[in-house]
C-alpha cells in the first residue's frame, strides 16, 4: 500500500529546515524532497527560498495539493521525502486517494489557535482532528523532532488518540 520510494512523510511548518533535514537524510537517505503547500507553491519567491534551504544535491519540488496527487499516484522514481506544514494537507491527500502509512510530526510551532502537545510541537483542535483522521485511515502518526530522539505515537501524545 505504501508509495514506492517514499522514505519519509513529515509535518514541519518550516518545511525544509537546515540541520534538521540534514540529520534525517543521514538516517534515511533520499535525493528528492516534495514539499506540498498551496500557498508556497503559488509564490515563486518562497519556492526559491525553499530550494535554496535544502542541502546540496537534493532536488526540491514545491507543489500544490492538486499538483501533488498525480505525482503520488505513481511509484516515485527516486527516494523521496514528502513535506507538509500541517496534517490538514495530508488529510487532503488521503481524501484524494493517496495512501499514507507513516507520518512523522516534527515541527509545529505555537500560535494563538494551537495548544502544546509535545515538546515544542503544538496543534489546534482542527489539526488534532486531522491527526486522528490520518490514524483512522491507517497511518502510524508519530512525534519525533530529530532522529536521535525517541519517537512517541499519537496515542501517547494525544489522549483519546489511537
Amino acid at each position, binding site marked *: 500500500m505504501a508509495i514506492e520510494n517514499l522514505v519519509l512523510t513529515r509535518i514541519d511548518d*518550516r518545511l*525544509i529546515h*537546515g*540541520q534538521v533535514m540534514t540529520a534525517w537524510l543521514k538516517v534515511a537517505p533520499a535525493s528528492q524532497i516534495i514539499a506540498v503547500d498551496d500557498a508556497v507553491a503559488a509564490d515563486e*519567491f518562497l519556492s526559491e527560498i525553499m530550494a*535554496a534551504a535544502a542541502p546540496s544535491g537534493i532536488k526540491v519540488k514545491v507543489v500544490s495539493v492538486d499538483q501533488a496527487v498525480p505525482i503520488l499516484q505513481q511509484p516515485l522514481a527516486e527516494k523521496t521525502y514528502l513535506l507538509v506544514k500541517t496534517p490538514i494537507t495530508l488529510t487532503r491527500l488521503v481524501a484524494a486517494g493517496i495512501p499514507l502509512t507513516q507520518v512523522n510530526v516534527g515541527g509545529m*510551532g*505555537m500560535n494563538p489557535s494551537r495548544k502544546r502537545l509535545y515538546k515544542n510541537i503544538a496543534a489546534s483542535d482542527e489539526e488534532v482532528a486531522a491527526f486522528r483522521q490520518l490514524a483512522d485511515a491507517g497511518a502510524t502518526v508519530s512525534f519525533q523532532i530529530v532522529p536521535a530522539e525517541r519517537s512517541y505515537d499519537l496515542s501517547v501524545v494525544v489522549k483519546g488518540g489511537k
Partner: protein
Amino acid sequence: MIGILIAGHGEIAAGVLSAAQLILGPIDQVETLALTVDLAPETFGDQVVAAGERLDTGDGLVILTDLRGGTPFNQSALATRDRRWAVVCGLSLPMFIQAIESRVTADLPDLIEQVKAAAADGIVSIKGKAV
C-alpha cells in the same frame, strides 16, 4: 554605503563582529542579531526587517547568515523580497571582513560575489604527518 546585518544562531553574529573589530577597530553601519530558543521564527523575521531598515541608507543591505536552511537564513531570505537586500549564507570571519572591504567600492551584486569568493578562499587544511 551598503549596510551589513549579521544574523545567526546564538552568539555567532556578535562573535564574528567582535573578532573583526579586534582586527579592524570600530566598524560602522553594522548590526548583529541572535536567534535564541525562545524566539519564534516570525519574531526573528520582524527583527531582521527592523534592523535592515535602520542599516539600509539607500545603497542596499547584505545579510550574512550562518546556516543554510536555518531560521536566520530563512527569515532573512523572506525579508529580501521586493527590497534591495541580499542574503549570503556560510558566515565566517573572512566573509565578513571582505564585506566591509567590498562595500567601500563595490555595488551589491559585486559585493555578493566577492564575499562568497573570500569565504571559500578562507577554507584550507593542513595535515600533520600522522594523519
